């Protein structure tokens, strides 16, 4: 399987005529990233750590479609409940302000959170006699910047704001997450 993927990558790399990413050309670019995200909830003292990734397709130099997936892998918690095993799936569009190898972006996305909330304190539990796994909608915006230093790789940093309702009481579960790292891209069109 691994050998086939390497051969496929070599074939794609060989037959594609690479875009000049240093000139701000982005149309036809497919990119993917995977990273660790740290987030802070805005309405309570909980920090989350997500393992996340996204893939993005640039249908023009300025606009792209993007899909994201995040899995909660840890949290720093001073509240009475925990959100273990929570995951998020979202889709949205980005506006890309490409300038040379740099590419600041702004995005809008919407999706669902598979929320798994458990009580940490017995005193917090009286109202917790309900299923703790809830599928809740979310929306958000993102801002970031990428630096395309090589045909197939780029550095990136970004922050995301997630807006969602608490399904157990009339309050918000908003959070801001941020990350950075190395991304991979395949230029498909000249």
């Amino acid at each position, binding site marked *: 399987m691994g050998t086939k993927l390497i051969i496929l990558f070599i074939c794609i790399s060989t037959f594609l005529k690479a875009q000049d990413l240093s000139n701000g050309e982005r149309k036809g670019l497919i990119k993917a990233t995977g990273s660790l995200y740290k987030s802070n909830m805005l309405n309570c003292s909980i920090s989350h750590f997500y393992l996340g990734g996204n893939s993005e397709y640039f249908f023009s130099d*300025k*606009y792209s479609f993007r899909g994201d997936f995040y899995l909660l892998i840890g949290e720093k918690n001073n509240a009475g409940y925990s959100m273990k095993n929570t995951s998020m799936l979202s889709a949205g*569009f980005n506006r890309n302000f490409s300038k040379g190898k740099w590419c600041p972006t702004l995005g809008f996305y*919407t999706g669902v959170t598979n929320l798994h909330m458990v009580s940490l304190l017995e005193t917090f539990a009286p109202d917790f006699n*309900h299923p703790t796994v809830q599928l809740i*909608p*979310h*929306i958000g915006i993102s801002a970031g910047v990428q630096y395309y230093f090589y045909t197939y790789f780029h550095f990136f940093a970004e922050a995301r704001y997630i807006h969602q309702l608490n*399904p157990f*009481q009339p309050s918000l579960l908003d959070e801001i997450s941020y990350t950075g790292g190395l991304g991979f891209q395949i230029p498909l069109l000249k």
Partner: protein
Amino acid sequence: MNYLVLLFCCMVLLFSNAQDNLKSVNGAGDFSLGIRSTTSFFDNTNSGLPGIGTGGDFRIRLSDRVNTDWFADYIMSTTNYLKRNDFHIGWSVMFYPFNYSNKGFKPYVLAGHCFDYSQFIDLKNFNHSDDRWSSAIQGGLGTHYYFTDRFDMIFQAQYMMHLGTHLESEVVNSEIQFKSEKGALSEGHLLITLGFNYKIGKLWGQN
């Protein structure tokens, strides 16, 4: 609602600057796919936050002035007493009375029909819940904003009225009670939608 209005204004300002490639097109046969988020304001909830929704849609344009929108939304809201889930699957006809080219702002009037599944859950006891399927009609106003001739954003407001049996909630002695009511047009909600669509291609005709 405020954050969707703010988002719409920000997106117009931030996503614009791309009018250079805009051109007038023969719209019949256009097929586009998109994502959307809907905020719901129900008229019978007990002081809670507006619902947040997520969903998707596709559009098939019948002529320059008439478009059709086929959508699915999942909206959740919570009040002091209940959690409400709403699933909408339906369609709307969009009519463009003024500008019908894929340029800048393109206002429209819409009307349509949807199937609606609602679920009410008591926050104090999730075993205490009720649900129902019903049918609804909706109508409203909205506008596209075209970033390119293929990529647009919509912002629309519509009122949805249920036609069949619907659920109502009532707080009695700090306990929530659910009851089904028959009869048309006695319950409704205001829906504010922000969405983005990309034109995949044409099902018939030529650009």
